[in-house]
């Protein structure tokens, strides 16, 4: 049993359902009388809706009904909202334009939902959708963020003149300017962070079921946070009061951020189920996913980094423009502000930092958090800049970083964050050793002899995870608290259910959370069941994103376990007529320390429920709930090194090796942590080499399928060399920091630093496609 506790490489045996085709995802759900929805979407990036004629469609075979936005509005369904208030530097609140679940008079991106067809089959729903006649008055559109800021650009929302959502800043601009003016060296660089499509393999889906007998709604949905979905749909969208709305997120096939948000389809299918009095299921097709799932990244920035004569960084000044698309998605405002600019100190002691961020509307799908969310943008910017500085100063990239590392903790950055622990040099040293950094020049010579260009690049990242201390984020504008909840129910026979408000959609919580409990109580892992994803079963919770489920969700379980253990010890002490202080829990028994007296765990559980012989005044039962609100963020950090070989004839990049040295604090299950790192690296390498969303100038999406949007495949990736240098996190009881996003955060700059090193041209944007690399090689000569 001990081998299944914290730190063990426990395999995910309990997840056998996924290997046998028995997983239950939303689109796998069928209920009696269920019908299929098809959403009619705008083919134009920007247009006025003049008229919608559904008469012909309504008489098509199999059609139940065709519904539009006016009917939705008449029933009082509210606007979609952004839940994080940001104020511009002039004190004005962000300019939130109205986002209707079904557009009424204006559509603002290709894919904006306009009407819904409900029919017997999905084919018939789509047939009928083609018979709906919508007259549009097409308006000029703008997809490019720079163009959207120009005078005379098409305007998306009357609330936001110049398409500007907010103009926000952090840090002291004058101090940064002074430091730059007096610097011995200033590195300047323009940084573009390419727009990405999250593309979980499971497309979004929802099944809305209205029960007229109870006036009650059930929503099956592909969500990372079903409770937040219920809260928002009740409090803001007026779908139903919380007690009349059950949200279930069953097995969910990946999220990566894109399934945090509440989209129009959940709201509309629930409403349509009541209108038509049949259960209504909608499943996105892949092109709809490209068109309507919130995209990620899409920043352009100007950067200046100042150094003194001793090569210490004296200031960083950043001016960023972030494209938020046509509407403000649920957490879109937080991503380019508090999840981004607060990480601009990186691993370095930088006395002065100033960042200015302008967010802008364009006629594109909304942009929100995607794996890493703000932190990859900060890391890419910082690590490309310091690499460039090292080249300009003629220093080794490792030495320049080493010179500027933060070395004593806690460390207060000038941009809010207070780093609690870390050892950046340990990861740098481990990575350089694993990569045989010193042997690189010989390997480069070997490549050159074969006509190839070889390069090596590093990246030292930091991220803020364990999202997040509620009061702190509340003071920064968050509309919710970011604590987590847990309930530990010990059944009468000693088996255990752990209810968590976090949600597992690939993270393996059913294994790692059970390991925690098995280790604490000394009970077999098979006797523990993890329950999540259903608002009727689980107390309020905040869901899974931002690498928070370990640091915050498991800490809540620890608190609940503390309470369960305390009560169990009281019962055991009473049963054995011992002192409560002498009771220890070992190997599934409660023992009197130093004696051979013991009662098995199940007997204590049974005693708590029979209640025949409990300490005087004790309530029966053995079940405890806890809410854990973290005291600080956690700060995973590490060093990644990429080594590449470029074919100068074609510009093709071959990743020769990729080294990741991470500090995640204490590790619950190394097997699962490695999987999370692999996944993050795959997505980061995808961003660096392959992936980019392209819109044309009229706002038509050019990358709307896997034929045009290049996803990393098995043969695009190398094997990875992983290692861990763990400094326990002092801010939570388990000492864990989080590992879900690190790979996606740390890898892009390492790769671009390596490729630019290989080709001798620092001007290269992501994705570094073979054509761009080939062009950069030719531009360099």
């Amino acid at each position, binding site marked *: 049993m001990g081998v299944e506790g914290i730190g063990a490489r426990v395999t995910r045996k309990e997840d056998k359902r996924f290997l046998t085709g028995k*997983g239950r995802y939303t689109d796998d759900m069928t209920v009696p009388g269920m019908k299929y929805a098809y959403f009619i979407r705008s083919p134009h990036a920007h247009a006025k809706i003049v008229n919608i004629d559904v008469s012909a469609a309504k008489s098509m*075979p199999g059609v139940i009904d065709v519904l539009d936005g006016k009917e939705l509005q008449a029933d009082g369904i509210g606007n979609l909202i952004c839940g994080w208030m940001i104020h511009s530097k002039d004190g004005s609140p962000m300019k939130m334009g109205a986002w209707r679940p079904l557009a009424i008079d204006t559509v603002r991106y290709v894919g904006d939902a306009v009407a819904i067809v409900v029919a017997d*089959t999905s*084919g018939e729903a789509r047939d009928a959708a083609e018979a709906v006649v919508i007259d549009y008055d097409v308006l000029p559109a703008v997809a490019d963020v720079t163009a959207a800021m120009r005078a005379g650009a098409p305007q998306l929302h009357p609330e936001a003149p110049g398409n500007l959502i907010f103009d926000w800043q952090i840090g002291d601009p004058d101090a940064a300017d002074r430091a730059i003016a007096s610097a011995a060296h200033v590195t300047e660089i323009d940084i573009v962070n390419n727009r990405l499509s999250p593309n979980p393999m*499971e497309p979004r889906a929802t099944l809305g079921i209205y029960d007229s007998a109870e006036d009650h709604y059930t929503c099956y949905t592909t969500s990372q946070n079903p409770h937040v979905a219920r809260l928002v749909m009740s409090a803001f969208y007026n779908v139903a009061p919380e007690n009349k709305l059950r949200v279930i997120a069953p097995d969910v096939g990946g999220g990566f951020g894109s399934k945090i948000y509440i989209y129009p389809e959940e709201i509309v299918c629930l409403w349509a189920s009541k209108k038509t009095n049949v259960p209504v299921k909608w499943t996105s*097709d892949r092109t709809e996913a490209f068109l309507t799932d919130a995209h990620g990244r899409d920043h352009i920035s100007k950067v200046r980094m100042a150094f003194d004569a001793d090569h210490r960084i004296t200031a960083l000044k950043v001016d960023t423009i972030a494209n938020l698309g046509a509407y403000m998605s649920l957490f879109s405002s937080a991503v380019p502000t508090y999840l981004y600019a607060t990480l601009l100190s990186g691993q370095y002691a930088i006395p002065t930092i100033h960042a200015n961020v302008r967010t802008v509307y364009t006629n594109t799908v909304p942009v929100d958090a995607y794996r890493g969310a703000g932190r990859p943008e900060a890391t890419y910017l910082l690590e490309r800049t310091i690499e460039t500085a090292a080249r300009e100063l003629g220093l080794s990239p490792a030495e320049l970083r080493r010179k500027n590392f933060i070395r004593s903790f806690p460390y207060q950055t000038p941009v809010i964050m207070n780093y609690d622990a870390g050892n950046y040099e340990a990861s740098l040293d481990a990575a350089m050793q694993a990569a045989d950094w010193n042997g690189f020049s010989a390997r480069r010579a070997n490549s050159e002899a074969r006509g190839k260009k070889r390069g090596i690049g590093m990246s030292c990242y930091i991220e803020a995870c364990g999202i997040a201390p509620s009061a702190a984020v509340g003071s920064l504008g968050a509309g919710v608290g970011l604590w987590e909840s847990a309930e530990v129910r010990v059944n009468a026979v000693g088996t255990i259910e752990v209810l968590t408000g976090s949600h597992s959609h690939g993270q393996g919580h059913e294994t790692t959370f059970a390991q925690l409990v098995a280790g604490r109580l000394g009970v077999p892992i098979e006797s523990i069941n993890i329950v999540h994803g259903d608002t009727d079963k689980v107390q309020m919770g905040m869901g899974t994103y931002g690498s928070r489920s370990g640091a915050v969700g498991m800490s809540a379980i620890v608190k609940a376990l503390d309470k369960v253990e305390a009560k169990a010890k009281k019962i055991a002490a009473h049963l054995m007529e011992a002192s409560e202080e002498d009771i220890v829990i070992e190997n599934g028994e409660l023992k009197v320390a130093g004696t051979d007296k013991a009662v098995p765990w199940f007997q204590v559980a049974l005693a708590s429920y029979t209640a025949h012989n409990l300490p005087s005044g004790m309530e029966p039962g053995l079940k405890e709930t806890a809410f854990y609100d973290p005291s600080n963020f956690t700060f995973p950090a590490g060093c990644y090194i990429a080594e590449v070989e470029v074919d100068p004839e074609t510009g093709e990049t071959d990743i020769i090796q990729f080294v990741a040295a991470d500090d995640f604090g204490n590790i619950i299950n190394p097997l699962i942590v490695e*999987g999370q790192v692999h996944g993050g690296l795959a997505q980061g390498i995808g961003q660096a080499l392959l992936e980019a969303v392209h819109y044309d100038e009229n706002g038509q999406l050019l990358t709307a399928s*896997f034929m045009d949007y290049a*996803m990393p495949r*098995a043969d695009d990736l190398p094997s990875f060399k992983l290692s861990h240098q763990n400094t326990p996190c002092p801010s939570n009881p388990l000492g864990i920091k989080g590992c879900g996003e690190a790979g996606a955060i740390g890898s892009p700059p390492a790769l671009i630093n390596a490729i630019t090193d290989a080709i001798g041209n620092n001007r290269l944007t992501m994705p570094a496609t073979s054509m761009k690399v080939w062009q950069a090689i030719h531009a360099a000569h």
Partner: protein
Amino acid sequence: MTRTIHLSLDINGKQHELDVEPRVTLLDALRESLALTGTKKGCDQGQCGACTCHVDGKRVLSCLTLAAQVEGRQITTIEGIAAEGGDLHPVQAAFIENDAFQCGYCTPGQIMSAVACIREGHAGSEEEIREYMSGNLCRCGAYNSIVAAVREAAEMAATGVAAKDKAEVA
């Protein structure tokens, strides 16, 4: 209701009768008409491999195959590869041991592809496995573990055959 045709499909060794429109794909027939939802729809355009099934032992994309096209063929889905008694197929077991899945959504397709990859004799090296598994996307990025699982299962299969051959020679 639109016009339907009657089909009799041999799936996992059992005959299934169904009435579907001629335009219905094997994937939709499995999921919507036969409640065999283990086969997943990732792109419905033949570009992700989530819908991989076997037809006469060969891997096919069920999203680009009409149900009518495979009448009279032997169809195998993820529900049909474990032993009758419930023991996992060696490839499924190798996926657990190597942590070769995360969210599980692409997993049935990966496993069906892996079984075929080994059967085709294309699992001889890590590089070959990467190439011959490249039709199956995994956004969780479990590729390295998938490759390790396929390698392990292939080696087990090869040793198993070798042992059997030895026994026959003896």
